[in-house]
């Protein structure tokens, strides 16, 4: 049973009007009648009927003009108009449709056909209604979605940009809504002055791809600021993503740990396309290959945190990209691919132009701009050439402990797995007066610890590091020996004493090794090639006093501060 409609009948012949009205009423509809076009338009405006039967030729205003006006008033809503006409020549019928008519009915009227046409038009009308409702609903949902994305992006930007992407040695390119392509770029200074950089690419698009970015960024920034190492951060991110993301959602990522002081970069790549180490002299392009499954795939116990270490020279650049570059697709369905990327690299003369050249190559290839491309490049610069904000503290510093001492001994098993530096740093930074020197303090602790561990406990010879091969060998030996470590210790003795003007911290680090010839090292370090560590020199430079006993077993450093400084 079709719905009851209100139907406007515009017909100048009173008998026909009566006949139509009767048919329509018998069908169960409500009829409204007008005797010319002008009346029909007025009645339409007043009553808003759902369907119109319109005579073509009428006095005052004909059906064509009335149809045009009614259609205009109806707007997006479909008000079907069926022309009633004794006109038979094709041209006149075409005029009916051009004026906005949806169908026509030839005189004399046939009740059955009229009923069928009204029903058919009613179906169309309802279809249009449904389409409009759905369109509005979709538009509304889309508006909600965009608004949610704006809010999410604003919140996320606060988190993501708390890092150091603006540092002068970083260049990057990302679409403003990269987050909703699943792309993520983070960079942060380490307490020691080096830098962690992460380029990530979550599976999927939209909010599901963006949702994992927040916890990842929090872990990345939180742990970097506290002095955790690359592998610890990777493990934590992997475990967290594995725990919170649904199965099948994961994050392809490359994490870089750049040390300006040691001039090395540590690289872990799980699932991102090859990054590249671009040498300042243009001599070679070292691929930084994905060696691992993406983050969030493996259970913590199965996760592999093995990274590669590369020496860097001033001006060397580490270049990372998301798969949007390589998977850009042209009209013929070909992918941009690595070969084309290498051609861009080879043709590049001005490093500063590289990103623009890659974009141009993509544009030429695809014929339109690619909006899901993320590129980042980090350069090796002189230690100390980057200015950075102070360390961020969580404590209020109201109850600063000033007079205490503590000793820690970290033994074999622990040295293999545990990094004591964040723990010690957090403890020491409870002392408010030390906070302004937090960075230097961390660097000194880190140097003393790695010297104690690598040379003292593991017995590694730093002179190995005097060329690139030896350098790789050194890190290979380091991880092998560390994995086999059963015995040995590193001790930290911390002593804090208040002084009349402030306070003083003394840190003594000892290890189970056979000691070292401090004087010889200092002399040697004035000469050695840059690949060798200059750890002790740095410690001397950053701390107020640095001493070691004759037998070279242990090093003492001191830091002091003035109250209120």
């Amino acid at each position, binding site marked *: 049973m079709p719905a009851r409609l209100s139907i406007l009948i515009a017909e100048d012949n009173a008998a026909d009007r009566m006949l139509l009205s009767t048919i329509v009423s018998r069908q169960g509809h409500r009829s409204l009648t007008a005797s010319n076009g002008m009346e029909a338009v007025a009645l339409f405006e007043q009553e808003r009927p759902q369907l119109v039967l319109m005579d073509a030729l009428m006095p005052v205003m004909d059906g064509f003009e009335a149809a045009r006006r009614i259609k205009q008033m109806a707007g997006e809503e479909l008000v079907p108009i069926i022309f009633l006409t004794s006109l038979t020549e094709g041209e006149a019928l075409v005029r009916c449709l051009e004026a906005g008519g949806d169908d026509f009915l030839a005189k004399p009227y046939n009740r059955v056909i009229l009923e069928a046409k009204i029903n058919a038009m009613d179906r169309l009308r309802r279809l249009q209604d449904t389409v409009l409702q759905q369109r509005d609903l979709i538009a509304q949902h889309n508006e909600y979605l965009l608004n949610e994305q704006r809010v999410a992006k604003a919140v996320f930007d606060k988190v993501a940009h708390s890092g150091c992407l603006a540092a002068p040695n970083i260049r990057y390119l990302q679409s403003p809504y990269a987050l909703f392509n699943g792309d993520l770029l983070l960079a942060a200074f380490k307490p020691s002055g080096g830098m962690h950089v992460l380029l990530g690419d979550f599976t999927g698009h939209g909010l599901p791809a963006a949702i994992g970015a927040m916890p990842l960024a929090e872990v990345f920034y939180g742990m970097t600021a506290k002095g955790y190492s690359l592998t610890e951060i990777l493990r934590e991110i992997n475990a967290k993503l594995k725990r919170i993301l649904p199965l099948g959602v994961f994050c*392809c990522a490359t994490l870089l740990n750049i040390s300006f002081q040691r001039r090395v970069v540590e690289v872990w790549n799980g699932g991102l*396309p090859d990054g590249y180490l671009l040498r300042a002299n243009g001599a070679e392009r070292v691929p930084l290959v994905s060696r691992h499954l993406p983050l969030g795939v493996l259970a913590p116990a199965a996760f592999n945190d093995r990274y590669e270490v590369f020496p860097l020279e001033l001006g060397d650049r580490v270049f990372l990209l998301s798969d949007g570059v390589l998977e850009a697709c042209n009209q013929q369905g070909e992918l941009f691919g690595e070969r084309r990327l290498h051609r861009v690299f080879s043709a590049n003369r001005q490093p500063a132009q590289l990103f623009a050249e890659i974009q141009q190559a993509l544009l030429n290839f695809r014929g339109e701009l690619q909006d899901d491309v993320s590129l980042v490049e980090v350069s090796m610069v002189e230690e100390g050439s980057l200015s950075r904000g102070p360390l961020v503290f969580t404590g209020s510093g109201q109850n600063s402990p000033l007079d205490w001492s503590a000793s820690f001994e970290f033994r074999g098993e622990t040295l293999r797995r545990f990094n004591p530096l964040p723990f010690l740093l957090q403890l020491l930074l409870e002392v408010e007066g030390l906070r302004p020197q937090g960075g230097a303090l961390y660097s000194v602790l880190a140097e003393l610890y790695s010297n104690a561990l690598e040379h003292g406990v593991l017995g590694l010879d730093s002179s190995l590091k005097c060329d690139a091969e030896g350098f790789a060998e050194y890190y290979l030996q380091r991880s092998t020996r560390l994995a086999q470590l059963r015995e040995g210790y590193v001790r930290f003795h911390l002593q804090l004493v208040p002084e009349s003007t402030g306070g003083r911290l003394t840190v003594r680090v000892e290890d189970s090794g056979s000691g070292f010839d401090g004087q010889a090292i200092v002399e040697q370090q004035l000469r050695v090639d840059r690949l060798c560590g200059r750890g002790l020199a740095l410690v001397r430079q950053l701390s107020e006093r640095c001493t070691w006993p004759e037998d070279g077993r242990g090093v003492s450093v001191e830091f002091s501060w003035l109250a209120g400084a």
Partner: protein
Amino acid sequence: MAITSLPSPDGQELTIVIQGRFDFGAHQEFRDAYERVNLSPKRYVVDLKGTTYLDSSALGMLLLLRDHAGGDHAQIRLLNCNPDVRKILAISNFEQLFQIT
């Protein structure tokens, strides 16, 4: 894109054949291919011979299949990967989770 699944005569192995692009659009169809069969095969084969392209969502779907098939004990072979597909699987190091031949 079309996905068909074909059990072996003894019901021990299920072969899923993927034609065309294997991306997010295939999500439901791919799940149906292994969830809507009334048998519990011991081994799975994903035949990528006709697969022209594979994106990271597809990698996620493969992980879902792996979980369905028993997680770390799953026996899944990926067959007939073209060089592009193989490259994507290699970058993600999926050979650690799947047998790629």
